[in-house]
C-alpha cells in the first residue's frame, strides 16, 4: 500500500503539471478519477500552474523564508488544533500543498503515525520545518494525487487549494485517497481576502488608466464550498469562517510580503505590467480609505475551515422516516416526563 507512492517519487521528479496523468509510466499509479481528457464539466483553466510552481520555488529559496511565514504558521496551528480536537489517532496522514510543512510541526508522534507531505515546489519540500513525526516528501500536484484508493486516515490541506484550477476534481481526489471513516481537515482563502487591496487597485486603475484588470485571484464562496464538498462525496460537513487582519505600514510592504509568501498572481488573464503611477495612486487610495488610527493599513485574510468525513457504516446517520417515538407537540411535557422516569 505504501510502495506505489514511494515508487512514483522517481518518476514525478521529471513531471510537471502539463503532462496528463495517463502518460505517467509508473505502473502502480491508479487514480480512480477519470483522466485529464474528461475533466468535470465547467472546469476552467484559470491559473498557470507551472508559473505558480516557479513562484513557490523562488519564495522557498529566499534568504529568510521565515519572514513571510506568519500567516501560514497561524493557519497551520489552527488546523493542528482541529486535528487534536478529533479524538482519534491517525496512523497515516497526508498534507496536500504543504509548503514548508506548517501543520506537521505542531502535531506529535502519538496522533500521527506517518506523514506524507506533497507540494508542487521541490525547494519548499527541501527546506521543510522540523517535526518529530516521520515524514515522506512527495512532489505532486494537488489535482493529481499519486496514491491508491483508501490509503489515508487523515488528509489536511492548508492554504493551497485556492490556486487549484479544478477544485471539484481536487476534492474528489482527496475523497478518493481517504479510507472509509477518514477525515479531511482543510483551510483555504475565502471571498473577502485582500478586499482592501482589490478595491484600491480597481479604483486607482480606473482613475489612472480608464479601466481595470483583476490583480487578486478569484476565491470560492462559502456556499459553493459546501456544495463542492458534498458533491465530492464527503459526509458530515463543517465549514466555518475566520478572519485574520494583519496591519502593514503601507501597500508596498503588503505586496512585497505577498510575493515572499509565494502568493503572487498567476492567473492566465493577469496583466503583465502594473504602472508605477497606478501603484502610487493605489497606495494613496488604500491609505486614505482603510487606514487605521495608528497610520498602518490593514489587510484582511478570510479563511474557510472545512472538515469532511468519508462515509463509513459506523458513522451516525439521519433516522428513518416514521421512526419517531415522540412528537414535537410533547416538548412542553419533556421535563415532567423525565422527572417521572427518574422517580420510577
Amino acid at each position, binding site marked *: 500500500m505504501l510502495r506505489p507512492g514511494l515508487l512514483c517519487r522517481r518518476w514525478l521528479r521529471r513531471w510537471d503539471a502539463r503532462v496528463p496523468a495517463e502518460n505517467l509510466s509508473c505502473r502502480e499509479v491508479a487514480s480512480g478519477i477519470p483522466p485529464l481528457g474528461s475533466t468535470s464539466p465547467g472546469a476552467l483553466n484559470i491559473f498557470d500552474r507551472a508559473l505558480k510552481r516557479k513562484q513557490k520555488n523562488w519564495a522557498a529559496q529566499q534568504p529568510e523564508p521565515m519572514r513571510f511565514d506568519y500567516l501560514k504558521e497561524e493557519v497551520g496551528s489552527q488546523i493542528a488544533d482541529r486535528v487534536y480536537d478529533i479524538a482519534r489517532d491517525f496512523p497515516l496522514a497526508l498534507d496536500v500543498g504543504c509548503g514548508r510543512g506548517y501543520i506537521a510541526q505542531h502535531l506529535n508522534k502519538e496522533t500521527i503515525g506517518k506523514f506524507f507531505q506533497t507540494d508542487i515546489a521541490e525547494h519548499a519540500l527541501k527546506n521543510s520545518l522540523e517535526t518529530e513525526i516521520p515524514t515522506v516528501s512527495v512532489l505532486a500536484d494537488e489535482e493529481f494525487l499519486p496514491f491508491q484508493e483508501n490509503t489515508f486516515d487523515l488528509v489536511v490541506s492548508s492554504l493551497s487549494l485556492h490556486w487549484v484550477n479544478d477544485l471539484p476534481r481536487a476534492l474528489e481526489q482527496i475523497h478518493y485517497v481517504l479510507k472509509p471513516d477518514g477525515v479531511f481537515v482543510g483551510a483555504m482563502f475565502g471571498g473577502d481576502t485582500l478586499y482592501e487591496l482589490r478595491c484600491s487597485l480597481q479604483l486607482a486603475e480606473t*482613475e489612472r488608466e480608464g479601466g481595470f484588470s483583476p490583480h487578486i485571484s478569484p476565491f470560492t464562496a462559502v456556499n459553493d464550498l459546501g456544495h463542492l464538498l458534498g458533491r465530492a462525496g464527503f459526509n458530515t460537513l463543517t465549514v466555518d469562517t475566520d478572519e485574520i487582519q494583519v496591519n502593514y505600514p503601507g501597500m*508596498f510592504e503588503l505586496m512585497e510580503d505577498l510575493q515572499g509568501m509565494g502568493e503572487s498572481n498567476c492567473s492566465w488573464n493577469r496583466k503583465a505590467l502594473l504602472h508605477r503611477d497606478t501603484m502610487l*495612486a493605489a*497606495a*494613496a*487610495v488604500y491609505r*486614505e480609505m482603510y487606514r487605521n488610527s495608528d497610520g498602518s493599513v490593514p489587510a484582511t485574510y478570510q479563511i474557510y475551515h472545512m472538515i469532511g468525513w468519508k462515509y463509513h457504516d459506523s458513522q451516525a446517520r439521519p433516522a428513518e422516516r416514521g421512526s419517531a417515538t415522540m412528537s414535537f407537540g410533547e416538548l412542553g411535557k419533556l421535563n415532567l416526563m423525565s422527572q417521572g422516569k427518574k422517580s420510577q
Partner: protein
Amino acid sequence: MSANGAVWRRVRSRFRAFPERLAACEAEAVAYGKCVQASTTPGGRLSKDLCAQEFEALRSCFVAAAKKSLKGGS
C-alpha cells in the same frame, strides 16, 4: 530572472524606497485619496483622470522627494 539577479535587485531596491517617499507627500496623498473616495459614494462616477490634478500634485511631490533622496543619499 538573470543568473545573479543584479537587475532585479537594483529595480527592487528602487521600489523599496517608494514607501518613504510616499510618506514625505502625506498631504497630497490624502487629497488624492479623498477625491477618489468621493467618487465611490452613491451618485458619484469614477472615470479616467477624474482626479488628475490631485494626482499630478502627488506625482510631482513624489518625484521631488526622489530627487532629494538621491542628492542627499548617494
